[in-house]
Each structure stands twice: as structure tokens, then as C-alpha cells.
């Protein structure tokens, strides 16, 4: 059974600690992930900006990397969601279209994999802190990952999950949107951070490092000490202590 890590370019380059937490957590259940080296980026920045030819160049590395994997796990709902667009992206390329269909079936966002494939909801973690959760748009709306993270957090001992007002509102990241429409994006992340502060949580978790980079970057800019992390990191910290 070959379980591969779709590390995503942002976790690879900027947040290796997230991918490490996933690899270590999965090892506790006997899953030894492999890391196919040819993978780069899912292609989303180019796809969303309308540069599909450029997106294909990146996407092909993903399709090639995981051709012989049985399961593909990623720390991002958005990048896994991008795989669901590959059939459209490669509609005129029969070879890659077939690969795209196969990959879509075997790709899982991290919490999907834990809950639906491994059947694990209680990792035996302890994390005595006030935590709030931001459901990233693509993970929750494209993949439908809504309950999985909540179920996992409910079973963490000591964790107090506090509501994030208007949790489902976009944080304003949107890839190149944040660069092109920086003032609108800035208004959105300001509002999101206001809601995080309103929740009075010590920790903000999510399932997408791009969105979390956006929110934490803004919180840092405002000098707000809320800790921001991926749910995998929280869970790993929580089990390390036991």
C-alpha cells in the first residue's frame, strides 16, 4: 500500500513543520509515507489567473509524481481541490486526462484521510488551550471537508473549541488576488483577524497554510500574539505530550 505525501509547494518551501507533523502522525498508525521527488506545485496560481498552459506545466509534475501511489495525502484542501479541476484542465489531452481521473479518486486532504481512510478520530492528543478554527473556502466548499476537523478537535483532551464569528467567510487570500487586488484583500483579512480576536482564542487552526499565512501575517503585522497553526501541527504537539 503506497501512501504518498503531496507536500504542496508552500509546505515544502515555507512550512516544512506541517508536512513533518503529518508524516509523523501517520507513522503512528503504521503508514510510512513516501515523497515522490518530481512533484512541484498543483498549478493553482496559474489556473486561477487564467494561464492554463502554464498551469498544465506544473500540474503534470503532480500527475507524474503520484502515478503509482495508492493514496495521496496533502496538508491543503485547496491544493487537493485543484486536482478536482484537472479533468477540465486536461480535457483535450487524453493521456493526462486519464491520469487526472485516477488521481482525483485517490487524493485526500489530511483530515479526510485520517477520518475516512484510516478511520481515526481520536488520536489520544492532549492540548489544553482555547482554539478556534477557520474553514478554508476550497477545502470546505470544493472538497466538502466540514465536519472532519471538528470531529478530530472535539476528541482532543483539554482543547476548548471556541466559535469563530462568520467562520466561513474567505480570509482574502485568493492567490494572485491578494497581490492584484491588495486593498480588497487587505480589507478581508482585517475583518477575518478582527473575528479571530473577537473569539478570544489563543490558537487559530486551519487546513490550508496559504490562508493561514495570510491571517497570521496580518496578526503579526498588528502585533497580536494569537498562535496560528495547521491542525496537523496541533495534533502532533498534542500526541507528543502523551
Amino acid at each position, binding site marked *: *500500500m503506497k501512501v504518498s505525501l503531496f507536500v504542496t509547494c508552500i*509546505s515544502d*518551501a*515555507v512550512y*516544512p513543520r506541517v508536512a513533518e507533523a503529518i*508524516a509523523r502522525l501517520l*507513522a*503512528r*498508525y*503504521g*503508514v*510510512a509515507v513516501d*515523497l515522490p521527488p518530481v*512533484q*512541484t*506545485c498543483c498549478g493553482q496560481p*496559474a489556473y*486561477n*489567473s*487564467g*494561464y*492554463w498552459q502554464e*498551469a498544465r*506545466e*506544473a500540474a*503534470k*509534475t503532480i500527475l507524474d509524481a503520484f502515478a503509482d501511489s495508492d*493514496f495521496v495525502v496533502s496538508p491543503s484542501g485547496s491544493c487537493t481541490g485543484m486536482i478536482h479541476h484537472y479533468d477540465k484542465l486536461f480535457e483535450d489531452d487524453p493521456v493526462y486526462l486519464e491520469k487526472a481521473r485516477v488521481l482525483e479518486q*485517490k487524493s*485526500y486532504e489530511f483530515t*479526510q484521510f485520517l*477520518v475516512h*481512510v*484510516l*478511520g481515526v478520530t481520536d488520536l489520544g492528543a492532549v492540548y489544553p488551550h482555547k482554539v478556534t478554527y477557520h474553514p478554508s*473556502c476550497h477545502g470546505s466548499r470544493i472538497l466538502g471537508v466540514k*465536519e472532519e476537523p471538528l470531529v478530530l478537535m*472535539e476528541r482532543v483532551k483539554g482543547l476548548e*473549541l*471556541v466559535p469563530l*464569528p*462568520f*467562520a466561513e467567510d*474567505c480570509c482574502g*487570500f*485568493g492567490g494572485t*488576488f491578494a*497581490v*492584484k*487586488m491588495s*486593498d*480588497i484583500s*487587505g*480589507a*478581508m*483579512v482585517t475583518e477575518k483577524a478582527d473575528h479571530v480576536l473577537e473569539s478570544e482564542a489563543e490558537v487559530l487552526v486551519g487546513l490550508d497554510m496559504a490562508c493561514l499565512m495570510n491571517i497570521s*501575517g*496580518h496578526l*503579526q*503585522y498588528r502585533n497580536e500574539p494569537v498562535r496560528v497553526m495547521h491542525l496537523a501541527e496541533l495534533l502532533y504537539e498534542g500526541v507528543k505530550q502523551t
Partner: protein
Amino acid sequence: MSAAQSKPRDTVKERAELALNNAFLRKAVKYTTEKLRGGKQQAAEEHGNWEAWRERGRQIRLHTIAHLDYYLQEFAENARANGVHVHVADTGAEAVEIALAIAEQKRARSAVKSKSMVTEELHLNQALEGIGVEAIETDLGEYIIQLAGEAPSHIIIPAIHKNRQQIAELLSKDAGETLPPDTTVLAGFVRKKLREKFLEADLGITGCNFAIAESGSMVLFENEGNARMVTTVPETQITFMGMERIIPSWSDLEVMATLLPRSATGQKLTVYMSGITGPKRQEDGDGPEEMHIIIIDNGRSLQLGDPEFQELLNCIRCGACLNACPVYRHIGGHAYGGTYSGPIGAVLTPALQGNVAEWDDIANASSLCGACYEACPVKIPLHDMLVYLRRRKVEQGYSPTLERWAMKGYAAVMSSSVKLQRTLKLGKLGQKLVVRDGVIKARIGPLEGWNRYRHTPGLPEQSFRERWETLEPDIRGSLQEMDAGMKERMQQLVRSRSEGNENQGKRDSSEGESIRSDAPTAYSGKRNSDRVDREESGVNKGKGGGNHG
């Protein structure tokens, strides 16, 4: 000349900036959209079977649009048999000409109008004024906007961007005396003033929420009763109808009447729903002596047969996508530059013009979060369409040069992991100049706009890939034995794939049964509607403000 709108000279970015610096506007729009989407969410939940009805609504619209020519034919025949004059206009300009000809023939001096987005699209009021016909908007929100000399900034709540104080000032000028910013007083003033206008009017002009093919009827949804007046008092009624407004039958209307008010305002039912089948008959107590329906294409048929955009014609103009949109909330409707705003406007405006180049930039004003799709009662995938629009612009060579180069660079780096590694190494060297305490604060290059609101994390010593060399053996050393049940389950999943059972083990937790064994927590049960009743209310924001259509 087509009645197509000319492209605004400024960019969406510039218009958005105006809005972002307008605290009144932002507060007013935020207040009302939060209230409306909270109401919608609650109405959908109370309905109990929302997803099924949403799918039903989508199917009705898909079917109708797929057979649009058939149903239009049926509608026109039935309406004519009812005594309605049915006209067909390819362009907005043609539609306006038809209406002006009727007005001239009737020697009309004034017209009362109920709320209609399609007449906004045609700039009908200006055309009527041009031949000396006074056109008076009778929907409260539209009346306010007309006084202000503005265009509606929301398809359901035209004056959503104004607060009560601003509205009181406008109406005070109209009244020639100072009116207090009190909803009852303000609405009372307008009602009294409009009553006279209704009695004087020669023409009653309406839009059309739905046209029923099987009986040739037109249906209006509204909350104020003004559309009833418009369709009963004046002698001549002119209805403007987008060619896609059609549905096959009255039983389909039941579905639409369930979806539209709930999606628009959270109402279970609209206050007034009028079905009008022809002019006044002898036995009728009221109604127009003469009735015209102008069916308008104006760019709509460009979407027919276009697999990426045909579903746009399914739109029932409920405004739910505007209320759900986090971008709309911050910039309001005028920033979109066209008649239709918000996510639907960002796609519809360029689509109706058939000209991506001129309207390309509004497609960029979206983070592609998908809230519009989730809110849409007929499930139009607006977030996908925005991407298709962007792609068409790139394909047609309208993208900015710098962006094109950047994307070429992106493709070059991301086409091979070796190049990506090399680039990251360079980045790690380069960032030494700008990283302080682990973050980049300098507003330089592509980080210019981003860093105006954030700090950017620097790249860590080692990428995950580099770390993997030591990490992998370490992890393998601590590997646990896999539980036999788990292993069996995974093998079963792999087997079921080859049997073509696609979604095994990936249940969408938003649909179907819950993955929990226990009850949902307070967290997941939390509703937005708990939080939206805090701020002051505006006159056009009260329950039942505005018409739908």
C-alpha cells in the same frame, strides 16, 4: 447602436478604492448583507429540505434554457391569445425604441415603474425623459436612488449603500422640509407622494420575475404593493422581460416561489405575488386596457450553446450571491461598474457584452472563495465562470505583459522539481537582504501590496524536501504496526476504485449522513444569524424592503 453599456473609464481597482475609503458605505452594505444572508441561512434551515429543492430549481432552469426557443414560442402564442402585444427585441436599443413608440402613440406624459433590473440595463428612464415622459420609480429603494441620480448598487436592495441619515437628507430635499430619519415617516412621505403619481400616470412599466409558458402569464414578486398599483392603475402596461425569465408551468413557479424570497431576503413568501394573464377583461375590476410584453435578448443568446456560460441564464436574480460575497461586502455594487453587481454581475456584465477585453478587470475582483455558488438557489458555478473569463482574456492576448512574464517564469520553475529546488536555494540567499526576525516587512516588488497589510514569513533553513533525507529514516525507525482492520479497509478502498466506485471513503460531510457518533457541538451549530441584529437599521433595510426582480 446597441444599448450595451460602454466600459467605465476607471478600473475596478480604482472604483473599489473609492468604496473602501467610504466608511458609511461599508457599514451600510455590511449591515444589510449580513442581515440578509443570516435570514437566508435561517430560512433554508427551517425549510428542512433546502438542498433537494435547490437541485429541483436548478433542473427546472436547466431544462427551460435547454429548450428556450420552444418555451418562448409557447409563451408568446399564449400571451397573444390573451390579448397581449408581444414584441421581440434583439438589442436593448430596439427594446427602448419599441417602448418609446408605444409611449408616443399613447401620447404619454408620465410613467410609473416597479423595480426592474432589465430596464436599468437598458437605461430606459433616460430614454423616456428624452421624449418628455416623466418616469417615476415606485419601489422605495429605487425612488431613493432615482432622487440621488445613481444606479442601484444591489439587485434586490437598490439603495443598500445608503444609511438612514443619508436617505432622510435626500427625501427632505424632495419634500422641501426637514424629515426625521425615521423609517415610518420617510416611507409615509414617499407613499403619499407616489399616490398622486400613480393616478396621473399613463404608462405602467414593469420587469418580469417569471413568465409562465403554459398560460402566457407574467409574474411579479414584490413586498411593497407598488407593482400591483403599476399593473392596475395606468391604462397601458409595458413589461420588459429578459428572454430567459421563462419557466414552463405554474407548478414550476411553486419551486421558484419557494427559492426566490428565501434566497433574497429570508422571507418564506414574498408579500405580493402577482400573476398577470393579459389586459383587463370585461369582468375584471381593474387592470390595464392595453398590455405589451417586450422580450429582450441584448446579449443573452450569446450564452446559449456556450458550455462554460449557458448556466448564467439560469439566474433568478435573487441577490443571494451578493449577500454572501465577502468582496461585495467591502466594495459595494458600484465598484463593479455595470448594472449588475456582485459575483453574478462580475460574470454577467462581460458575458452580455460578448466582449471580454473591455470588461476583463471585474473578473479579477474575486478571491474565488465559492460563497456565491454555495448561496445560489439554482447552483450557478460563478466561481468557475470567473476563472473561465480570466482564461479567455489570457487566450485572447489581453493580459498585462508583466503578468504574462511572471506566469512564464512560474511555469518554467514549476515544470521541474530540480528547477524549483534551485530557485528556492537562490531565494534563501536573496532573502538574507530583507528578512528580519524571520519575517519580511519591506514593501518591495510583488510584496508591495501584500506587505501593506501583513508580514511575510521568510524561508526556513531547510525545505521539507531537504529535511526529508534525515527525517525519513527517523520516521521509519518509529513506524508502528498497522492495525489489521485498517489495512483491510485501505485495500478495500483501492479495490472499489477499480470497480468504478469513485467516492468511496470520501463522503462529503456537507451532505448526507454525519460522520459523528455524537451530537454536533455548539461550535458547528453556531449560526451567523445570532450575530446580525446589533447595528442601526436603515430605511431601506427593514423587513420586506425592496422588490425582487
